[in-house]
């Protein structure tokens, strides 16, 4: 089972995601801001990061730049689940996928919990 770093500023939603992940056997560290998420990763290296792009002060993109500068975190899968619809980020697709190593991008209102659990399982299970 995986250690999930959940970067989610919406507390009730973060609680729901965490509950579902814990019930599925994962451990979860919830962080609301980019800065505290970097500290959390430093304390306990995550197996996967679930990231919202709209954060207070520093954005999710800034977090991605910071996160990927550390060699030991280079290959940690990052799944972006955001309120920003995918079509609005089309121009940033290459940046997110190729430069910042985002594993997958999902529009949050359309991402069901069952899909989220499957994504986490797929991304953290060695092939």
């Amino acid at each position, binding site marked *: 089972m995986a250690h999930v770093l959940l970067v989610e500023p*919406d507390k009730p*939603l973060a609680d729901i995601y965490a509950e579902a992940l814990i*019930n599925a056997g994962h451990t979860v560290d919830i962080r609301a*801001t980019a800065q505290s998420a970097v500290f959390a990763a430093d304390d306990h290296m995550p197996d996967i990061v679930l990231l*919202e792009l*709209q954060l*207070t002060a520093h954005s999710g993109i800034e977090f991605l730049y910071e996160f990927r500068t550390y060699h030991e975190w280079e290959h940690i899968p990052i799944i972006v689940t955001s309120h920003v619809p995918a079509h609005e980020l089309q121009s940033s697709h290459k940046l997110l996928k190729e430069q910042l190593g985002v594993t997958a991008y999902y529009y949050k209102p359309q991402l069901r919990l069952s899909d989220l659990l499957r994504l986490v399982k797929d991304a953290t299970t060695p092939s």
Partner: protein
Amino acid sequence: MHIARRAELSRLHPQAQGQSLEDILISSETALSLIDNYVLSLQAMARGQDLIREPVSVSAVLHDAAHELLPAAKQYGVTLELDAGAKIEPVSMHRTSLQAAFVSLGHALIEALASTGATAQTPLKLAVHRSRYGVVAGLYCGREEITVEAFRRSQLLQGNVRQPHINLSAAAGAGVFVADALLKTMSTSLKVSRHHKQCGLAAILPPLNQLQLV
């Protein structure tokens, strides 16, 4: 979205259904209240500034607003405080709109505080005090990001960007603008204010001196 995901979680794990129903109830009541307040602001703007005003006790309005905000505050892990005990003269306002403004503002600030992860250290205070301009009533917290410049910038950005108050909230903070719109229909508006060294957003309300009985 909270309701949909909570319901889905409840279906996946029926043993936690009691807590899920409670959360769904809070989320749906919060959403309905915010929609009501938004509709009220639109109706008030459409009617123009002809709301029926009455003598209103600001302390009572803040007390009722705090009571309405309490379930959402608990859900977001935010502590609410009320500092409305001072003897303040009544003001001339439309009571329903004034309470709706404070509730909308409260929801926006609760969401903002939770999105910084600093809820334990930063209670949200509903407070009223007297100033030389009138009765100042609003919501205050220990966030230094609430500045005149930041508030002015967010008003310019509103409707054009997803996060008009980027240093304060991860959300759109629509409640701030709904509150401002409601207050404007009563010839006042939201202003950046301080109460006991805490930053916040408040309205200056005209006191009704002829009704001052204390």
